[in-house]
């Protein structure tokens, strides 16, 4: 290591909340021009640490240094003024305003009488944008940009100050593989300018591709830092969870059943065209492709949320007309949606009520709900799926991401569907729960369900699927079997490159 002084240094940070020691003597240093990964399971204390850094929480003990000066971050603006900039996982942009207005939000250059100095505003913004090499300008409306470009706007916002350290919190969570590459270039660029970068992510392949050092938190405690080049996935995972994570391909150990679901020439406007595939019971069919390739739209069509413009859906060989979710559920198709918080769960309701939501009507005695029967269903699936909750009365919003996802899966299993569609099964879920959910998907197939898994993560789709459908801009390019799939030909297929 060089002897230069760190861009950012945390020393012995302690933060306690009633009943929890969220941060227990955490120390961390980020050198200028270094990409420093911060890893840990959900609840390990990453977010708390970042909030301390951003001035949202004040630490109970410990010091923060920017360069060699100890500083106190009194609020987020103060933190930004001292050169610590955050790129948040969830974008916080005003979609109806232009890029320039967003970049300088709250700090618009003004003329006399409070008039906005549009000329300076656009010039300064365009200067920053040209550094980022993006394909839009200062006058573009943010709402018209893709998610990836909106993230670029967030980054541009960070560059309006003389940043000493930039913190990326799960920056690739909603990006496609192609868009990630652009982001990585920007990070490399910042790095070459001597900015210290903290990179928070759950994704191992990014950590190894991008970062110089890795620091790990577990249960609020600092577990140590390693040079990325000297470590490997298993070692980091073990530091994070204290056990090993298996991501190798699971062999098929059971016989496949009959064709449960068949789709023939299905089309839906410009979303997707001419889709043909079959899923057998006992099989996991993976759908892999870029965001916008039409995968989610197909799932929504099968679940009755979207009407196809042409084509047929056959369930157990019988043609079905599915025009609403309730029709889909009746027919035996269930969907674990992409975003469990906005589409899957009623966050304000308790665990049991969420679990039995689709069948509360079937279980009722006349107009009245049958509490006892519902608790029985909940208990059954809590045990089967190993859902960690103090009891069924717990509000779902208070559970961890992994347990929330298990509640959604349990909800649909309790309906005994023939076909279970899982859209992004492990988005925003920590490593430990991830492998539990992968295992669960394999087990469900083994017990006879036909499972469709849609995922943007290649290791995941390779790990859980028996066959993989590769999609590109609304069309199925190729269906791979586990024998002929490789990372290379899968990437080529979903990028629209035709192999010879």
């Amino acid at each position, binding site marked *: 290591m060089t002897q230069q002084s760190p861009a950012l240094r945390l020393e012995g940070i302690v933060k306690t909340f009633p009943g929890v020691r969220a941060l227990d003597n955490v120390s961390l240093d980020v050198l200028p021009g270094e990409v420093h990964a911060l890893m840990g399971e959900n609840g390990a204390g990453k977010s708390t640490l970042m909030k301390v850094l951003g001035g949202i929480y004040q630490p109970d003990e410990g010091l923060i240094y920017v360069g060699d000066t100890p500083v106190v971050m009194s609020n987020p603006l103060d933190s930004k003024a001292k050169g610590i900039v955050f790129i948040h996982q969830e974008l916080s942009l005003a979609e109806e305003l232009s890029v320039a207005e967003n970049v300088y939000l709250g700090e618009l250059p003004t003329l006399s009488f409070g008039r906005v100095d549009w000329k300076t505003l656009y010039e300064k913004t365009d200067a920053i944008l040209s550094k980022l090499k993006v394909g839009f300008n200062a006058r573009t409306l943010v709402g018209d940009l893709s998610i990836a470009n909106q993230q670029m706007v967030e980054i541009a916002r960070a560059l309006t100050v003389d940043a000493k350290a930039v913190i990326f919190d799960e920056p690739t969570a909603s990006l496609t593989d192609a868009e990630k590459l652009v982001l990585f270039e920007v990070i490399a660029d910042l790095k070459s300018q001597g900015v210290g970068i903290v990179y928070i992510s759950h994704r191992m392949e990014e950590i190894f591709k991008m970062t110089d050092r890795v620091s790990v938190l577990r249960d609020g405690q600092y577990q140590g830092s390693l040079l990325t080049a000297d470590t490997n996935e298993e070692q980091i995972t073990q530091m994070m969870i204290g056990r090993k994570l298996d991501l190798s391909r699971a062999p098929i150990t059971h016989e496949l059943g009959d064709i449960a679901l068949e789709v023939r020439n299905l089309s839906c406007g410009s979303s997707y065209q001419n889709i043909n595939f079959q899923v057998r019971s006992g099989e996991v069919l993976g759908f892999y492709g870029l965001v916008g390739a039409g995968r989610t739209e197909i799932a929504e069509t099968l679940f009755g949320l979207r009407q196809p413009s042409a084509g047929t859906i056959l369930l157990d060989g019988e043609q079905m007309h599915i025009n609403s979710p309730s029709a889909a559920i009746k027919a035996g198709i269930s969907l674990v949606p992409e975003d469990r918080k906005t589409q899957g769960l009623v*966050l304000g309701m308790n665990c049991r009520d969420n679990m039995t939501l689709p069948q509360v009507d079937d279980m009722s005695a006349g107009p009245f*709900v049958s509490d006892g029967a519902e608790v029985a269903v909940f208990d059954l699936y809590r045990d089967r799926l190993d859902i960690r909750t103090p009891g069924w009365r717990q509000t779902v*919003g208070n559970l961890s991401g992994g347990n929330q996802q298990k509640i959604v899966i349990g909800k649909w299993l309790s309906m005994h569907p023939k076909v279970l569609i899982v859209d992004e099964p492990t988005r925003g879920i920590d490593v430990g729960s991830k492998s539990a959910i992968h295992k669960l998907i394999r087990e469900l197939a083994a017990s006879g369900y036909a499972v469709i898994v849609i995922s943007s993560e290649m290791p995941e789709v390779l790990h859980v699927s028996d066959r993989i459908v590769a999609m590109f801009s609304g069309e199925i390019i190729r269906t791979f079997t586990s024998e002929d799939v490789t990372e290379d030909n899968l990437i080529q297929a979903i990028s629209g490159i035709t192999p010879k």
Partner: protein
Amino acid sequence: MISEFIKRNLSTSAIWLFIIFELLFFSIAGHYLSFSDGAFMDLNNMLLLLNQSAPIGIIAVGMTLIMVNGNIDLSVGAVFAIAGIVMLDSMTWPVFAGLGDWVIVVSWTLALLAGALLGALNGLIVWKTGVDAFIVTLGSMLGYRGLVFMFNGENPTSHLNWTLIDFAEAQFLGFNTATWFLAASVLVIWLVTRYTVHGRNAYAIGNNRNAAVNAGIRVGPHMVINFVIIGFLAALSSVVFYSGSGSVNPNDGQLYELWVITAVVLGGTKLAGGSGSVIGTLGGVIAIQLLRKGLGYIGADTSTVNLVIGLILIVVLFIDRQLNVKGAQELRV
């Protein structure tokens, strides 16, 4: 477990604590300020208070269901007036002339049906057009009020039936007729929210409509049912009230929607939907009535009363928000 229980019931219990505070305050302040000889917490005074709470209270019970479901109904005041007119006017129709006092049953039924129908109309428009309930019922509030004026111009609609007035002023176990109707409404709707499929689904829809749709719940019918219920309850409130007074002024019921919403919100129901209880609403209704009565008791005039209620509404919601924001932040750790 106990702290969890307290947390869950905080927003409802807060309003009852506030009511106790009001009782103590007005009893003590009244001792020095009131010109009246009677104590504030006099039994008859309290019974009268419940009786006077009934018109707003019965509608507020329905509004709780509507707001938990994620909607709002601004037309309740106009429905209140229409139902009153239907009841009083239909008693004078020649077709019912031979019925004697049985005309009361017929007129009540007609009025309640009218309320339910007007509610159903609101609900169907909200469901089928997808226009926000606020806009739809803002329109129907104006439209229904227009119907009231079309019927009899600026003139009141009156009819006196002594049997009806006796019924309205009757007492059973010490409570007035109107109080019994209020209690029954609270009980029935509480049972609906707590123990029925419809109640469960209404909460789910209000809390996360997308998730409810994805669970195969048909949102539209549940909304229509709730609008029918509130239309019915607005009419019920009306028939109970006009049975005693016997005369509907075309401006009657104006601003009721706002008093009703104030009571519901004071009782802890969220404007955004998904949480709330009729027990809390009952507290909100009583708290407002106590405030009106109490301020009157210590000699404040109507305009002061409105000012104070407005202030208290904002203060209570501010405190509620502080409590909730703190809770949410700790959870995100």
